[in-house]
């Protein structure tokens, strides 16, 4: 490679802002684009830590019996893997990174409604993450699983309180970001951008933000109750103190099920931007996509009980929650049909973002369709708390949200960093990531159907071939991820300069320079056309 790198053009948000230079300039900046990139850096680091922990677990599970660690270490490891991946990677995920960077630009605004609050949210995120890391030191790291189920979590001698405090602080970061986005969407849209002229990624962020604001406080209070019960022995959840363990599960899932939609809605939104651009076609069924996002956000509140079909709640509740769970499947199905219909008679450019997008659709379908067996009562009883759930969950969260994140980072990379990544390397990395993913998670469906319970340090010999294949898949996946990250990091430093609109997109972010200038637009924006008008 010729090591000649052209400098970025002047005038972008990468140029010095405010009075501080270098790293301090970033840490004090209220620019939504810089904050988006700071989230990206943190989330990348946490993601790689989470991947490493996952890899070590798969190494341990390669064969039955103890290989490299004892059961306590393993239990601590799946707990911290869950805490990092859920609270520090996928929940902030797309909305903190791409939401911060692109929401204001896509609606023609200079920044979010409350820029300083936005920076404060990032600091809260950093504080919460630091506390989560600290919970691993001094005594034993928590061993409860990321769900902190009572009464186990009430009486565990490990650092559960610290980990719970971390999730509490991270929750506030999420609430404030949601609040910021709601106000931004209501008050900051450009002249002429009516609600139904707003692009679909901002729409999905808007739906998500409402869940963040309304659902997160519940888990916040619940986590405080856990801390109070652990330290002051107030009996909320532990029956030996007079509490009710099922109450904990209700309160926990009232947030943590909608949290799945906090993860997946922005992912769907990003994919809904990529498909029209790469097909050069008006998105099919714009209104249906908007309404399905709102429907998912609304009905998604009312389905938490499907996590508790075996817990012993009343038979009527089981039936009602099963019914509502099937209702929420419909808007997701509608979105898939709309995506495919948008490809019809398009002019499809097959590049890395689009490859991640179609594998997202494929994996999201598997995740969604396997969710039907978990929503139906009779079948859920058999596969509840087994590897089937682990597979389903990773297909939605990693195969869905994760792959959409990968698609989005390749799609918006030229805009964010002003440089192009290596397309060939990107495609190779995609192929490895996709094969590794399938090899890692698909066998888990079979394991679960055959009765392999989750959170097992050791397993019966009849499950060993499934675990073996799955572990091989994990190593393939990790190689693919390393290659992908290497490609992007290299591109950010030395990639070729990117044009303002490399994919011929129609939304507003493609009408400003790459990377965008400090306040995004040098003039007031006025919108007249629909965001996906290709003619």
């Amino acid at each position, binding site marked *: 490679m010729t090591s000649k790198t052209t400098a970025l053009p002047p005038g972008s948000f990468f140029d010095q802002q405010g009075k501080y230079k270098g790293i301090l300039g970033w840490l004090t900046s209220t620019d939504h684009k810089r904050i988006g990139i700071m989230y990206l850096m943190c989330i990348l680091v946490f993601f790689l830590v989470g991947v490493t922990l996952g890899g070590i677990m798969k190494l341990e599970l390669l064969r039955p019996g103890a290989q490299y660690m004892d059961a306590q270490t393993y239990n601590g490891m799946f707990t911290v893997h869950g805490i990092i991946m859920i609270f520090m990677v996928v929940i902030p995920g797309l909305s903190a990174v791409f939401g911060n960077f692109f929401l204001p630009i896509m609606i023609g605004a200079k920044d979010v409604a409350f820029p300083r609050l936005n920076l404060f949210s990032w600091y809260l995120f950093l504080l919460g993450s630091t506390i989560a890391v600290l919970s691993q030191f001094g005594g034993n790291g928590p061993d409860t699983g990321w769900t902190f189920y009572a009464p186990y979590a009430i009486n565990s001698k490990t650092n559960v309180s610290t980990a719970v405090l971390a999730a509490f602080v991270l929750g506030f970061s999420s609430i404030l970001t949601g609040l910021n986005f709601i106000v931004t969407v209501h008050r900051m849209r450009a002249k002429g951008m009516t609600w139904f002229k707003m692009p679909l990624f901002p729409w999905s962020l808007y739906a998500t933000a409402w869940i963040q604001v309304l659902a997160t406080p519940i888990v916040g209070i619940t986590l405080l109750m856990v801390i109070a019960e652990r330290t002051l022995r107030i009996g909320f959840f532990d029956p030996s103190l007079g509490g009710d363990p099922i109450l904990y599960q209700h309160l926990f899932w009232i947030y943590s099920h909608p949290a799945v939609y906090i993860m997946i809605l922005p992912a769907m939104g990003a994919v809904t931007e990529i498909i029209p651009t790469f097909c050069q076609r008006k998105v099919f069924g714009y209104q249906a996509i908007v309404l399905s996002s709102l429907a998912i956000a609304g009905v998604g509140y009312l389905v938490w009980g499907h996590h508790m079909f075996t817990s012993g709640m009343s038979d009527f509740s089981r039936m009602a929650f099963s019914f509502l769970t099937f209702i929420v499947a419909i808007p997701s199905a509608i979105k898939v049909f709309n995506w495919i219909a948008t490809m019809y008679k398009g002019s499809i450019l097959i590049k890395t973002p689009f490859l991640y997008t179609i594998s997202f659709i494929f994996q999201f379908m598997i995740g969604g369709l396997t969710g039907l067996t978990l929503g139906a009562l*009779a079948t859920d009883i058999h596969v509840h708390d087994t590897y089937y759930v682990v597979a389903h969950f990773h297909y939605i969260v990693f195969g869905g949200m994760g792959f959409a994140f990968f698609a989005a980072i390749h799609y918006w990379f030229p805009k964010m960093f002003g440089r192009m990544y290596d397309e060939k390397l990107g495609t190779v990395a995609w192929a490895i990531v996709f094969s590794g993913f399938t090899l890692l998670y698909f066998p888990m469906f079979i394991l679960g159907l055959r009765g392999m319970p989750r959170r097992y340090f050791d397993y019966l010999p009849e499950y060993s071939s499934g675990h073996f294949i799955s572990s091989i898949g994990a190593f393939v996946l990790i190689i693919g991820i390393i290659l992908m990250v290497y490609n992007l990091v290299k591109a950010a430093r030395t990639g070729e300069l990117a044009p303002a609109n490399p994919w011929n997109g129609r939304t507003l972010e493609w009408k400003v320079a790459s990377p965008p200038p400090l306040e995004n637009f040098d003039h007031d924006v006025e919108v007249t056309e629909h965001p996906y008008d290709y003619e």
Partner: protein
Amino acid sequence: MFEGASNFAKGVDSVFLFIFAVSFFFLIGISAIMVWFVIRYNRKKHPKAVQMKDNMKLEITWTVIPFILVMLMFYYGYVAFEPMRNAPKDAIEVKVTGQMWSWSFEYDNGKISNELVLPAKKAVKLNLYSPDVIHGLYIPAFRIKQDVVPGKNNFMWFIPNYNGTYEILCSAYCGLRHSFMEAKIRVVSDEEYQKWLAEKSPEMLENAGLAVMQNNACTGCHSLDGSPLVGPSFKGLFGSKRIVIENGEEKTVVADSTYIKTSIMEPDKQVVKGFKPGMMRAYSTVIKDDDIKSIILYFEKQSKQPK
């Protein structure tokens, strides 16, 4: 998948089959269409996109059809589930205790066992009890599972169809030795069951102390064969010298009857060096004095046996 080992297995499996069939149809169909579009409308072959108008009829179609299908899934799922909640009145009742980290089964006549022995073709109702944290009683072959929640009277019921041995696993994460919390169901003929129920196993009779320990999950953490688990092994316990930590100070004690009793009643008072305090709950209100005596008797007898 298994054959119908319980009365529920067939119903559950047919719901699986229905949902999987619909799912495979849509997964393969939609994926094939997607791949076909990607190939057919590749920019090289199809450089200019054709803009399409929204089609209300199409959108209504693909909303209504999935809606009908998922309502069917909900219905079948409920119909196959509903009988699981209605145990027949004449079912054999067994009290199941799940505690960290073993199962024990108590029959009507007071017999306690670590293995669930049942007659084939008869309804059985398991009343689930946990003294500590949430466990999950899971019998994969029977397609049933129910959480064992402290403070709640959960139950499950089923009819085993065939003689044979099946696995019981713990499905709800319960801590350190969660993945080792297993037991077996042995389904036998009715005569064999009656015989088994009536007899006290000679080994148990002779080693009443061992039975007490197994029923209270002691052996889930303390092995009999010398391997250290969560706590020190019971092998060669009686009369041996133990290095313990008491009030932060190290000292050597002899494992006599007082020591054993103290270790059961107040486990954190003297903790054997190398093991963590706080792992074991105090059994002062759980195990009766007589039972502690028989435990001590058991250890004493073990120590006298020729090696």
